[in-house]
């Protein structure tokens, strides 16, 4: 029984980061209308910024969250201004490829600078854990979950309560309508894409502590974020969090209970995307 609850806890804690990454992607898909295949690479950049700040100034990753978020916001805004903005009306395929290209460039630039060996972070609290009723929570893992929850709460507060946030939701619901009532769509896109990148960067800082920073760490997160937003329905911001829970838990349970589960757990995500997409397509009509 303890195993069951421990697995539940592991899945739950993991889903915090997933939700963070996926909300970023959902913003980009829902508001800007761009499926950003480089989203995971933005996360990777965030992870390396945290690594560089620790290596150069001994800056704790918790503090690095703030500069990383700012740098990634600026970077996202730059990417939007210089490239995405010009393909907004191009076929989906071209947009997808453009972001693919950006991802390839980022991965290989990181490879040039840091090489392919994963860089782990040495922080004091990394190894310690809390024991509670026979369950164990890694301090870093638990902290990341709390932080992720707080950031997401902030994000949803901004989306639901502020003028900019509401305007973004309006764009996500109806692009033409939003333009007609006089919203500055271009500025909203810029902000949404910047926030989307910043969320990826913040998640990257957490990944650098929990896992490691590596040029290849991004792709798998892009794919998992896709799994989540596809389950939630492309562009549906609210459903991202429950979808992240479902996926985090599914992965954890497969890992624990299926024989040789470590290998299968990777496929759980993809099986879920595939089934949920196909299921939806056959139910609608």
């Amino acid at each position, binding site marked *: 029984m303890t195993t069951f609850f421990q697995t539940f806890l592991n899945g739950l804690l993991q889903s915090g980061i997933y939700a963070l990454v996926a909300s970023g992607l959902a913003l980009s898909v829902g508001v800007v209308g761009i499926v950003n295949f480089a989203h995971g690479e933005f996360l990777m950049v965030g992870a390396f910024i945290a690594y560089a700040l620790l290596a150069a100034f001994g800056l704790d990753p918790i503090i690095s969250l703030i500069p990383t978020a700012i740098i990634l916001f600026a970077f996202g805004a730059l990417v939007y201004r210089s490239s995405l903005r010009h393909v907004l009306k191009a076929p989906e395929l071209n947009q997808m490829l453009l972001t*693919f290209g950006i*991802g*390839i460039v980022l991965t290989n630039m990181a490879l040039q600078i840091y090489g392919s060996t994963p860089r782990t972070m040495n922080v004091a609290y990394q190894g310690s854990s809390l024991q509670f009723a026979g369950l164990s929570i890694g301090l870093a893992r638990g902290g990341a979950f709390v932080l992720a929850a707080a950031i997401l709460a902030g994000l949803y507060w901004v989306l639901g309560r502020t003028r900019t946030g509401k305007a973004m939701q309006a764009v996500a619901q109806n692009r033409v309508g939003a333009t007609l009532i006089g919203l500055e769509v271009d500025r909203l896109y810029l902000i949404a894409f910047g926030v989307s990148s910043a969320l990826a960067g913040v998640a990257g800082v957490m990944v650098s502590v929990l896992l490691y920073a590596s040029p290849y760490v991004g792709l798998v997160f892009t794919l998992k974020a896709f799994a989540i937003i596809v389950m939630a329905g492309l562009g549906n911001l609210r459903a991202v969090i429950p979808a992240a829970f479902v996926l985090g838990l599914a992965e954890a349970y497969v890992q624990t209970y299926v024989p040789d589960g470590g290998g299968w757990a990777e496929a759980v995500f993809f099986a879920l995307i595939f089934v949920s997409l196909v299921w939806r*397509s056959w139910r609608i009509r």
Partner: protein
Amino acid sequence: MNFVSRGWGWSLLLLALAFPFIPFGDRTQFVQQIAVFVLSSATLALSWDVLARTGQLSLAHAAFYGLGAYSYALLATAGVPQILAFLAAGVIAALASLLLGAVTMRLQGMYFAIATLAFAEVIKTIVNQLSFTGGPQGYLVPALLGGDFLGVYYLGLGVLVVLILISSFILRSKLGFAFTAIRQGELVARVLGVDVTRYKLLAFVISSFFVGLTGAFVAGKTFYITPPSAFDTGVSVVALVMPIFGGLYSSAGPVLAAVILRVLEEVLKLVAPSAYLIAYGAILVLSILYLPKGILGLLERFRGRK
């Protein structure tokens, strides 16, 4: 399509046929290596384009490529004559695509792309977990035609030429109109009496047959496959980058792009062995921003000016 006229086509074919006999001095082996990769990439790219003509933007090419590679490896090891194993690789990939195509029939655009990507990842994991495929340890592949360069080259060229013929036939026949109609609006096509289900599956089967052959072809040349190498997502990416770079919905565009990008890639590898992918990614980004209709679009614009 009109741009590369019949005369051009014939002269290029002659050049391709004579290619192995052009002397390159001490670079011969390097050039031969590139030539074989150009052939396999061109087949991959054109097969993707054929499928894309029905509006199905697939990211599952890696799945059929890997299935082809493993089918060939397992069958050839089991004692099936090589050419039969090679063809069977195509047939098995085509059958698998029939399954995928039927299930994803109703998905559109981005949803279709993501579902096919997921399909490829699931197949990769399954092959990784099975024992008779060697799992993560990989599998030794019998050399295709004993590794003889001339044989391998002409086999690759033959496959590509057959695909070009099929592709050109599709473009000029009723099929081409049906594919275009489906791409531009499935509902309208259905109303006009186009059998959408049949044509979409047909495109899938043709495309995947050739992808399966390419997988077997490359595996039979590299002698060793693992799930990550045979089901590499990079295969799916290359397969769609080339048609877009060259010019979509034509026979010439994807093939032309395969030649240019492959040679460029190898040259970049020589010049900057560790940074060539940065340049590759940058070319991709720039060509999308500035060449939305690909190389063919650029050539046509150039010709229109004269």
